[in-house]
C-alpha cells in the first residue's frame, strides 16, 4: 500500500493536466484510498504514468546477434555491478537483458513492446524477455514475408490466410503482428527487394506488396487484435521514399494501423546528394487521418548498431559503410540484418534524418498519434530518450543544435522554422498514454482507478534532459523500484499475449506445408505456454475469452 501525495499529476488518459492530486495503490493497481502503508510526499514534484515503448528491439535472435557483433562497444560502455539481489550487465548500444530492465526502469519506462519476433526463434525471445526484470512486455510476430501466408494471399485464399496468421500468433505466444518491408524480405531470399507497391514480388506471379499491406491490415482487424497492424513500410531509408509511404497509407484505406519509425520513411530527393525531408507531407496525412498512429524512430547523433528484419536494406547499408554486416535469413518467415552505424552531424544524410524525426514529432499535431521512439537501437539507444524530450520541449536548444549541421542543409529540412514546444502534458501523452492506447493496453499509461500502478515521479528541473533521465521515484505495479537514483527492487515483469480465435482444422492444413519448408518437427514448433513467465492474457476486440 502506497500513497503519493501533493504531486502535480499529468494523466492524459483521464484528461488530468498538472492538477495536484493524491494517488493510492494497493495490490499492483490504483485504488480510491488506502489505510496505512508508505506515503511518498511528492509536493512540488511531477507525476507521470510509467513510460510505454511502442517499438523497441530488446530481446531475441536479432539483438543478440548485434551483441555478438559489438564487443568493442561493451568494453567502453556503462556497467552494472552485481549485488546480492541484482545481476550484472552492460549498457551501451545493445544492452544485456538485465541491464535493459534496469535502464528502462531507471528512466521511468515500465512497459516495452519487442517489435520483431520470428516464430521459429520465439522460444529464444521469450527466454530473453524472462531475463529482463521490472518492465512488462509484449511481442509482435513477423508476418508480412511468411511464405505459407503469402501463398494463401497469392491464391486469393483470404480466409485461410487469416487462420494461418491466428495460428502463428498463438504458436509464437505473441501480442500482435509486425509487417516489415512486405514482400521485400521474401524477395531478399533471392537477393532481391520489393520497391514498388504495385509490382509482383520476386517468386510470385500476382502478389504485390500493396496487396499484403491491405489484406494483412484487414486480417488484424478481423481477428480483433488489440494492437492493429504494426507496419514497417517498403523502401526504408531510401531517398524519395515518401511516395511509397503515402502510397502505403492509401492502401490501408481507413483501417487501423500503426506505422513504425516513420522518420525513416519521410524522405524526398532522388539520391543521397539530393535527399531531403518530406515530413510535412507525411504529417499532413496523419493530421487528416486520426485513426492511424506512428512512432518517430528519431535519430540521435552518435554510435549505434542498426538491426532490422529488412535484410535487403542492411545489405545496402553494408555496401555504403563497409562496416561489419550480419545477416540471418529465417526459413519461411523473415530475415534479419545487423550493421553498426555512426550518425554524424557533418553527414548531410544523417543531418536530414536527425531533423526529420523531430519534425514529425512536432508537425503531427496530436500527441495521441505520434510517439517517442528511436526504433532502439536503430536511430539511437532507448536510454537517450531524455535527449529527445529536451529537443521537443526547448525550441532554443533545437536552434542551438541546428548550428552544428552543415550549411548545405538549408532547404533540405523544415526544423528551423518550427517553434512548437511540447508541454509536459504532451510529453506524457507521447511517451505513455498514447503508446499504451495504440497497443490496446487500457491499464497502462493510465493513472485511473483500477489501472496498473506504474508511476514515475520527477523532481522539477530546468534541465529537462536531467529531469527525465533521473526520476526521483519509479513505481512498477505499486512497488518502489527506483528511488533517489538507486535501484531498490527488481520484480519480474509480466508478458502480455493474446489467443485469437482459430479454426481447429488449421493444424491439419498447416502440417504438410510446414513439413515441406521447416526443419523442426511440427509438434516442437509452437512455444509452450508454460515457458512464458508471468503470462497475462489480453482480450481480442469483439470477443469474449473462454
Amino acid at each position: 500500500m502506497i500513497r503519493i501525495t501533493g504531486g502535480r499529476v499529468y494523466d492524459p488518459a483521464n484528461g488530468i493536466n498538472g492538477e495536484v492530486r493524491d494517488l493510492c495503490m494497493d495490490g499492483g493497481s490504483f485504488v480510491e484510498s488506502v489505510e496505512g502503508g508508505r506515503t511518498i510526499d511528492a509536493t512540488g514534484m511531477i507525476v507521470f504514468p510509467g513510460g510505454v515503448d511502442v517499438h523497441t528491439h530488446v530481446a531475441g535472435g536479432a539483438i543478440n546477434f548485434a551483441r555478438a557483433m559489438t564487443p568493442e562497444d561493451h568494453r567502453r560502455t556503462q556497467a552494472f555491478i552485481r549485488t546480492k539481489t541484482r545481476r550484472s550487465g552492460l549498457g551501451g548500444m545493445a544492452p544485456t537483458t538485465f541491464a535493459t530492465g534496469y535502464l528502462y526502469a531507471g528512466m521511468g519506462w515500465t512497459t516495452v513492446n519487442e517489435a520483431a519476433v520470428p516464430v521459429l526463434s520465439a522460444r529464444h525471445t521469450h527466454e530473453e524477455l524472462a531475463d529482463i526484470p521490472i518492465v512488462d512486455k509484449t511481442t509482435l510476430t513477423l508476418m508480412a514475408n511468411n511464405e505459407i501466408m503469402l501463398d494463401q494471399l497469392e491464391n486469393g485464399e483470404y480466409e485461410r490466410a487469416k487462420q494461418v496468421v491466428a495460428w502463428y500468433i498463438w504458436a509464437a505466444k505473441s501480442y500482435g503482428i509486425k509487417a516489415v518491408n512486405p514482400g521485400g524480405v521474401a524477395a531478399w531470399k533471392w537477393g532481391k527487394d520489393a520497391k514498388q507497391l504495385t509490382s509482383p514480388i520476386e517468386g510470385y506471379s500476382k502478389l504485390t506488396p500493396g496487396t499484403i499491406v491491405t489484406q494483412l491490415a484487414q486480417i488484424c482487424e478481423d481477428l480483433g487484435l488489440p494492437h492493429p497492424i504494426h507496419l514497417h513500410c517498403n523502401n526504408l531509408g531510401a531517398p524519395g521514399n515518401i511516395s511509397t509511404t503515402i502510397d502505403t497509407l492509401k492502401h490501408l484505406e481507413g483501417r487501423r494501423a500503426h506505422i513504425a519509425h516513420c522518420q525513416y520513411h519521410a524522405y524526398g530527393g532522388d539520391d543521397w546528394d539530393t535527399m531531403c525531408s518530406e515530413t510535412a507531407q507525411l504529417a499532413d496525412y496523419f493530421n487528416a487521418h486520426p485513426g492511424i498512429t506512428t512512432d518517430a524512430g528519431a535519430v540521435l547523433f552518435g554510435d549505434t548498431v542498426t538491426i532490422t528484419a529488412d535484410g535487403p536494406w542492411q545489405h545496402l547499408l553494408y555496401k555504403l559503410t563497409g562496416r561489419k554486416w550480419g545477416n540471418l535469413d529465417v526459413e519461411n518467415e523473415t530475415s534479419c540484418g545487423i550493421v553498426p552505424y555512426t550518425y554524424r552531424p557533418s553527414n548531410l544524410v544523417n543531418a536530414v534524418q536527425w531533423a526529420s524525426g523531430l519534425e514529425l514529432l512536432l508537425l503531427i499535431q496530436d500527441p495521441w498519434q505520434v510517439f517517442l521512439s528511436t526504433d532502439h537501437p536503430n536511430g539511437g539507444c532507448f536510454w537517450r530518450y531524455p535527449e529527445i524530450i529536451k529537443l521537443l520541449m526547448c525550441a532554443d536548444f533545437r536552434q542551438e543544435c541546428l548550428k552544428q549541421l552543415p550549411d548545405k542543409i538549408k532547404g533540405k529540412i523544415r526544423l528551423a522554422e518550427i517553434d512548437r514546444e511540447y508541454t509536459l502534458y504532451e510529453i506524457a501523452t507521447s511517451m505513455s498514454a498514447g503508446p499504451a492506447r495504440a497497443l490496446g493496453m487500457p491499464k497502462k499509461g493510465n493513472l485511473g482507478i483500477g489501472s496498473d500502478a506504474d508511476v514515475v515521479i520527477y523532481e522539477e528541473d530546468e534541465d529537462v534532459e536531467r529531469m527525465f533521465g533521473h526520476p526521483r521515484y519509479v513505481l512498477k505495479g505499486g512497488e518502489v523500484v527506483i528511488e533517489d537514483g538507486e535501484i531498490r527492487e527488481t520484480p519480474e515483469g509480466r508478458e502480455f499475449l493474446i489467443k485469437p480465435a482459430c479454426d481447429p482444422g488449421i493444424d491439419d492444413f498447416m502440417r504438410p506445408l510446414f513439413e515441406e519448408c521447416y526443419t523442426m518437427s511440427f509438434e516442437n514448433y509452437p512455444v509452450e505456454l508454460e515457458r512464458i513467465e508471468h503470462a497475462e492474457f489480453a482480450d481480442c476486440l469483439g470477443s469474449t475469452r473462454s
Partner: protein
Amino acid sequence: MGGKVSCTLGEVKQRADFIVYWGGNPAECHPRHFTKYTLMQKSKFLPRGRKDRTMVLVDIRETKSAKASDIFLQVRPGKDFELITILRALIKDQNVSDEAIADTGLTREVLDDLVQRMKSAKFGCMFFGMGLSMTRGKHMNSAALLTLAAEMNAFTKFVAMPMRGHGNVTGADVMMRWQTGYPFGITFNRGYPRYNPGEFSTVDVLVRGDCDAAFIIGADPGGTMPQPAIDHLKRIPTIVLDPHVTHTSKLARVHITTAPQGIAAPGTAYRMDEVPLPLKPPLKSPYPTDEYVVRRINEAIMAKPFWLPDGSQPQMLTAQV
C-alpha cells in the same frame, strides 16, 4: 571484415543450389547434414533434390565426404586463408599471380570454374568446420570465409555457417551473449562481465592457475585440455555435474551425477543455426537435473552473507576503466 551472413538450415534445404563444405567432414561428423538439409532434400525451388544441387568439398585430404561431392578441391595444408583471399580477388576480377595460385595446390582453371559456378548459383551456402577454424590462421580463416560470403552478395545470394558440434555449445554461446554481451572467455572478477579470449578463456585461466575453484557442467576438460590446465584442476576443489564418469569427474573433488539432457532432463538446445529446440525427455532418471542442482547450490549461496559489504560498490559505472 567482420560480421556473419547466414541463414537457418531450412533456407539451405529449400533454396541452396550450391553448397561448399570447407575443412569439414560431414559424412562422418554430421552424418544427417546431407540428408536433412543440404543435398538430398527436394523443395518447391529444387524439385529434383540432389540433381538440382552442386556440392563442393574443400579439404586437405580426401575424406569420406568427398564421395558425396561433385567437386573435390584438395588445398595444401595451411593454405586455406590464401585460397580464400585468392577467391575474394577472383570474384572481383582482380589479378592474381600464377605462383600465388600454385602455392595453394590448385590450378587457375579449377578456381575460374569454381568462381563461375559460385556466381551463377541462385543461392550459395558455405559450411566451414574445424579444419578451417582450428588450423593455422584460426579465426582469421573463419573471418576470411565469412567475408567471401558477404562479398558474394554483390553477385548473387550467398551465406556461410560454421559446422558447430559438441551438444549445446551454441546454446551456451547464445545465453551468455544475452546475459553478458559476450559469447565466452568472460570474467566477472570486477563484478561485471569483461571479455578477452586468450586471457579469460577457461584453458588460459586454468593454465595460469588464476582460479581457486572449478565448477564444470556437461564438459570433459580433463580429456581435452593441456596438462598444466588438468594439473590445476587437480589442485583446486573441482566440482563436476555429469551423467557419466569422465576424465574430469575422476579428478574432481565432487562429482554429482545428473540426468542426461534430452534423454531424462528437459530444456532447450540451440542448433548450429541458433534455432532453439525444446528437449522432451522420453525417460525418467533417478538423478536430479543439472538445473535442479544448480538452483539448490544457488539457494545455499544466497543464504550466506554477500561477499562484499553493502554499499561498498557503486551500482553502476558510467564508463569502464
